[in-house]
């Protein structure tokens, strides 16, 4: 699962919906994988304002990845002379190419663990937890 997706996932339980601690989910025993994909600068630009930068920062520290700048990069930083800049390339590597292959995602509120296998997270809940 791409780190991009992880920046949008919350706990699936109804009781967690209203709790701020249900987002972001915290990776545990995560195995990362790097898959090269084509860059799509326009998509990066479109998705950037919607990213939760604070969550992104906690995620990179938890995964032991290099630290991110304190603020969301601005639109101007993404391109130099019409070409995607280094910042944009780094964002692409982080969001689109880095993925969690296996491990667990833990809700900060109810501490429920969602298993991730082969890059697919299991969000099925037993009926008593819905």
């Amino acid at each position, binding site marked *: 699962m791409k780190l991009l997706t992880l920046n949008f996932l919350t706990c699936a339980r109804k009781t967690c919906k209203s709790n701020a601690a249900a987002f972001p989910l915290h990776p545990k025993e995560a195995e990362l994988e790097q898959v090269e994909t084509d860059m799509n600068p326009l998509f990066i630009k479109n998705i950037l304002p919607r990213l939760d930068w604070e969550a992104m920062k906690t995620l990179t520290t938890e995964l032991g990845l290099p630290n991110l700048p304190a603020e969301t990069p601005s639109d101007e930083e993404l391109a130099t002379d019409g070409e995607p800049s280094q910042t944009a390339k780094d964002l692409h590597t982080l969001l689109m190419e880095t993925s969690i292959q296996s491990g667990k995602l833990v809700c900060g509120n109810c501490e429920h663990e969602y298993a991730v296998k082969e890059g697919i997270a299991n969000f*099925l809940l037993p009926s008593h937890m819905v």
Partner: protein
Amino acid sequence: MSRPEDNLPPDLFYNEKEARQYTTSSRIRNIQADMTHRALELLDLQEPSFILDIGCGSGLSGEILSGVEEDEGGPHTWVGMDISSSMLAQALERDVEGDMLLADIGQGVPFRAGSFDAAISISAIQWLCNAETSDVSPEGRLKRFFDGLYASLKRGGKAVCQFYPKNAQQRSLISNAAIKAGFGAGILEDDPETKSVKVYLVLSVGGGDVTGAVSGMENVDVMDARRKERKRGKEFEKKGSKAWIMRKKSQMEAKGKVVKTSSKYTGRRRKTAF
């Protein structure tokens, strides 16, 4: 034709064998591809977007989403949800580009508010009308799904769900659930009144009017079934008028109170004394 929905729940129906057949059958692939293209046409996305694929299965529709040409506003990035692990295994084998979750859409959509530009669903949401255990109901599952979907789409976002309703009742059950969640909703029918009728539920967050989704398309008739705002009878009768008095009297009578009999003098104004 038998409906798979009538036999087994989706996670059991799409077992390894069924999932493989579904994914490799060229007939199903063609139908799915046509419907995905139609849904994309309805979504009318201009820029590379972040799309939720509900009931993504083996990624037949997702493939098309990531394959949209640059000059047509693509390629899009998608996240899929499906309840059948065999279907997702097929998707892994085929090495699709999007992310996938094993999740039951009837349990809600586990994304934070405003995540997606659009959502697409091909032949999935009719499964919501099945309640497999006694502690869930179709209405409850539909409500959780549409509430979750509404929240996870950004403002101005659109969703197109192609589905196979069992009958008119199921069709209105689904569309009413969407309207109740706050969507502006419309149903587009392709090839109506034939065996291969395709029903698309077009939903929009904010903005309300979904007929705009088909403007500029050829061969589309718009039938507006929205209820016009109607003044309730109560509002145009003035308090103290004859109609008002008669209504109040019948109300009191219905309650079992003693009410004076009505005559032609009831509710008439007295003439002024001087």
